[in-house]
């Protein structure tokens, strides 16, 4: 349809103009159906000094939603900005508030990364929900001026044997692969957890990382009066409109389709072209400001660009290219159609901008221009339908100090320890029992081999992937000349956080920090995705408040700033919330990725000494072993951030100085799982003994194998480096104990005096679980 035909169609609407709103103050508006509360609607009326037009109501309702405004969490999130030392600010080029934070890598390089949730769309339509999660986070990275270089995806599903889990996991994994693979972005890691608390509300979080030169950093603001505003990429359609049908009262046209999918539909090809096209725009310095269109679509892009810039913008909405010409102005403003970007272009660059669009065959339309009036004016065929101060839409939304209180059941939960419970009776103690327990653990849903998932993702494209799942962190080379690169790990433990939100969140941070350090990188910055239940439930609100307090306190101690992230609330099935799940993504830096440390030993490491760093306590509460026995209670493992820092320093130095060839952090599943995973990594056996460890730390063999005490890692040290390595650990007064040696000839994991576990048997059990359930 030509633009002229489209415009004729659009004129059929009976517009609710600003002039009309001023003279019809009593018109009933569907604010409640759009999700606004009475007090919020009253506030809109107060801000405008009149009732909003239908289009204005659409904008405020979506921009003041929990998702866009963070109205329940903002009070608490401030701590991420407040608890920051000068040292932590040193490398932060762009902090919280932009599309994604930017961290300095040195030599003129910068890195931007962010993690976001796409939980509810994935429950409804797993393939498109997960796919557009990748699409959205990648556009955030492009809008900063960066080339996206990798993605990761922490996933949480319901019980592995529940029939609906197969529907969700097949769709979500295929969606992430289908979209990410088509963008040419390696998927370098993530997580996979099965727990019935996520049955009605799976968690699909998506992380993207991008790199750029300092001078290429772009911000979302519209500056320079007279600069032009352009919308480009895919056309705007009716997908992703929440509650759009109620706006149909705007229209005279009875024949228009009224029910539209609330889940967006992704087109990865359009996004891939958009990436290349944007990077060419950046290279030619052809845009003054840029913003991706995600949640809240044009409402969000126009109001944020305008309020972050010189304060004014005027656009003509009939200029928007549509997939569906029957869309109303309110629907156009709220549509979350994917693969769209909005940019501000100075008049002298218009020609070059259009040439770039034409080269990549990307559609675009000029919508209007930047003004200095401080008003965002949106017109429909020349008539004003929106006239607002953009700040009131984008930044001055409602703010709630929701009541929160420690749940009354928390004490009883913490008192119910694993070893005092029925599930904790008759623990394995003989060698045969310990062996069977380790095999069972390694085959359990959360500990089993994930390659059924990761093999559906391209981990090689780009040629810069130095480590990927199942290693502790994903590692990407940034500079091919120097080998400089970044490491990324994401971690969370919903069970720990359920038992103790403050420390549980810190444990997520500690594990992500440890994973990055284990790979050999220096931890630098954090992005977090806080997945919680309803903030209107005071128990959940307490979990959220405690988790944010814990995370921000720990970030300060570890010296890693939060540079961005996302809060996802209302994750629950009926009135039952998910476990509080703060997913922490840690970014680290390598001077040279050649120094990276893989998570297992190869055959040529035969004879290398295996050391355990750190102290093992009797900490089984909330563990994976307790989980396979069906128990959740007690207190999670102790947090010791000082020990994490020292351990990190040892691992990083040992990697840099060539003292270790492989390393693996101890987390879920404890030492038993770590040794099993290291041996299976390249299929090479080892002989270890637990006697020295048990004697030093006062624990039995079962506890030594399955306790989930923190700040621990296993390393493989070449014989020639043993003295130097021991000296370094001793100098830092960090506990270290020699466990045994790599044994390339054995093809088994032998725990002397306990058991000899054939690696084929272990591998079979480890790899069979996901295919058994999902084919």
């Amino acid at each position: 349809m030509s633009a002229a035909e489209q415009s004729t169609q659009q004129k059929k609407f009976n517009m609710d103009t600003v002039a009309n709103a001023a003279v019809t103050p009593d018109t009933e508006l569907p604010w409640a159906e759009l999700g606004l509360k009475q007090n919020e609607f009253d506030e809109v009326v107060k801000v405008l000094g009149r009732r909003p037009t239908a289009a204005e109501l659409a904008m405020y309702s979506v921009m003041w939603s929990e998702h866009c405004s963070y109205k329940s969490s903002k009070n608490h999130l401030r701590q991420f900005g407040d608890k920051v030392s000068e040292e932590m600010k040193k490398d932060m080029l762009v902090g919280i508030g932009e599309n994604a934070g930017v961290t300095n890598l040195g030599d003129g390089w910068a890195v931007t990364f962010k993690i976001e949730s796409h939980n509810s769309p994935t429950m409804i339509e797993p393939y498109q929900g997960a796919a557009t999660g990748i699409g959205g986070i990648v556009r955030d990275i492009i809008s900063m001026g960066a080339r996206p270089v990798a993605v990761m995806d922490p996933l949480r599903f319901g019980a592995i044997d529940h029939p609906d889990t197969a529907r969700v996991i097949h769709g979500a994994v295929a969606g992430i692969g289908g979209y990410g693979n088509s963008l040419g972005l390696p998927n370098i890691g993530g997580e996979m957890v099965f727990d019935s608390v996520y049955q009605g509300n799976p968690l699909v979080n998506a992380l993207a990382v991008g790199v750029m030169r300092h001078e290429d950093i772009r911000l979302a603001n519209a500056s320079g009066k007279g600069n032009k505003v352009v919308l480009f990429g895919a056309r705007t359609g009716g997908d992703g409109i929440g509650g759009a049908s109620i706006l149909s009262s705007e229209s005279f046209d009875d024949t228009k389709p009224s029910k539209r999918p609330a889940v967006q539909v992704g087109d990865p090809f359009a996004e891939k072209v958009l990436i290349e096209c944007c990077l060419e725009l950046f290279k030619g310095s052809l845009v003054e400001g840029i913003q991706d269109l995600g949640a809240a679509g044009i409402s969000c892009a126009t109001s944020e660009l305008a309020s972050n810039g010189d304060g004014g913008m005027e656009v003509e909405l009939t200029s928007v290219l549509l997939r569906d010409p029957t869309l109303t102005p309110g629907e156009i403003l709220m549509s979350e159609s994917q693969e769209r970007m909005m940019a501000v272009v100075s008049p002298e660059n218009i020609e070059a901008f259009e040439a770039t669009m034409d080269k990549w065959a990307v559609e675009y339309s000029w919508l209007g221009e930047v003004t200095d009036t401080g008003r965002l004016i949106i017109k429909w065929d020349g008539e004003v339908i929106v006239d607002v101060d953009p700040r009131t839409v984008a930044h001055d939304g409602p703010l709630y100090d929701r009541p929160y209180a420690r749940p009354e059941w928390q004490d009883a939960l913490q008192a119910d320890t694993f070893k005092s419970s029925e599930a904790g009776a008759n623990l394995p103690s003989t060698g045969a029992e310990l062996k069977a327990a380790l095999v069972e653990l390694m085959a359990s849903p959360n500990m089993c081999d994930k390659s059924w998932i990761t093999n559906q993702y391209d981990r090689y494209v780009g040629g810069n992937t130095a480590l990927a799942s199942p290693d502790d962190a994903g590692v990407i080379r940034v500079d091919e000349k120097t080998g400089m690169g970044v490491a990324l790990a994401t971690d969370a433990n919903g069970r720990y956080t359920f038992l103790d939100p403050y420390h549980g969140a810190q444990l997520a941070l500690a594990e992500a920090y440890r994973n990055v350090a284990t790979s050999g990188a220096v931890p630098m910055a954090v992005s977090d995705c806080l997945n919680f239940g309803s903030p209107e439930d005071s128990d959940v609100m307490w979990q959220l408040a405690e988790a944010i307090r814990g995370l921000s306190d720990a970030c300060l101690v570890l010296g890693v700033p939060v540079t961005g992230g996302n809060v996802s609330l209302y994750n629950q099935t009926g009135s039952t919330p998910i476990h509080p799940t703060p997913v922490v993504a840690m970014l680290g830096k390598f001077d040279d990725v050649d120094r990276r440390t893989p998570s297992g030993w190869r055959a040529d490491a035969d004879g290398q000494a295996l050391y355990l760093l750190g102290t093992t306590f009797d900490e089984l509460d909330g563990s994976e072993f307790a989980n396979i026995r069906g128990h959740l209670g007690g207190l999670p493992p102790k947090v010791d951030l000082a020990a994490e820092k020292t351990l990190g320093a040892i691992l990083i130095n040992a990697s840099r100085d060539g003292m270790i060839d492989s390393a693996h952090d101890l987390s879920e599943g404890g030492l038993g799982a770590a040794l099993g995973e290291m041996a299976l990594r390249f299929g090479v056996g080892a002989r270890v003994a637990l006697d020295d460890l048990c004697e030093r730390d006062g624990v039995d063999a079962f506890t030594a194998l399955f306790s989930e005490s923190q700040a621990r890692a296993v390393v493989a040290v070449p014989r020639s480096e043993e003295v130097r390595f021991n000296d370094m650990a001793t100098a830092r007064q960090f506990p270290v104990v020699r466990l045994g040696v790599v044994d390339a000839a054995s093809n088994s994991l032998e725990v002397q005096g306990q058991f000899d576990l054939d690696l084929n048997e272990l591998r079979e059990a480890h790899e069979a679980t996901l295919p058994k359930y999902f084919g």
Partner: protein
Amino acid sequence: MSATELPLIGDYSTPAAALSGARIGVVTFPGTLDDRDAARAIRMAGAEAVSLWHGDADLSNVDAVVIPGGFSYGDYLRAGAIARFAPMMSKIVDAANSDAKLPVLGICNGFQILTESHLLPGSMIKNDHLKFLCRDQVLRVENNTTAWSNQYAQGEEITIVLKNQDGQYVADEKTLDALEAEGRVAFSYVGWNPNGSRRNIAGITNAAGNVVGLMPHPEHAVEAGFGPDHTGTDGLGFFTSVLTHLVGGQK
């Protein structure tokens, strides 16, 4: 690339000491993903990588062409079906069929484009297990006389990266018999057939040996630390093969 320049757009500059001075084109379509990897592999083999844009109709005097993997035009309609109509493809088809017999390597989506362009017989359909699969794959070199395989030993087993959704090679029985009889199966899968391809075919060549298509990705296995199992470099032989071919004439 200079140390201060971000490779926002594929960087195809030449190292100072290109061994043969050969120029090898890398075609980029909308949706091509592995063009930068292919260019890197060409540079690591010692040649100059030349960027070729699908919409242009000028081969820029290249000595050989790589059509890299990806999802040209989103694989919409059918993998490679739209790309074959690009002006650049007409030039490539003509040059490959000419007396000069321009060496052409199609990888993954590039292989699909070559079959759609009728430079090679057969076609690719969805993997028999219906999923995208990424893994380190062992191949056997079945024909080491092509422009792209002459640096391997006949029967040599190599490990490179396999990653595809539509990788199941199919053709009618007569064509398959002919391919095998004429030694035109250039590479085959070893151990496990990862996509249900007929006769375990991973890659084929035309009769003249200048056009080769294969599903797995040699360009992801050229640099130690970034290839299969983070160590493998078995794919480099494809690119040194074509340089040898260009220097010494057809083997």
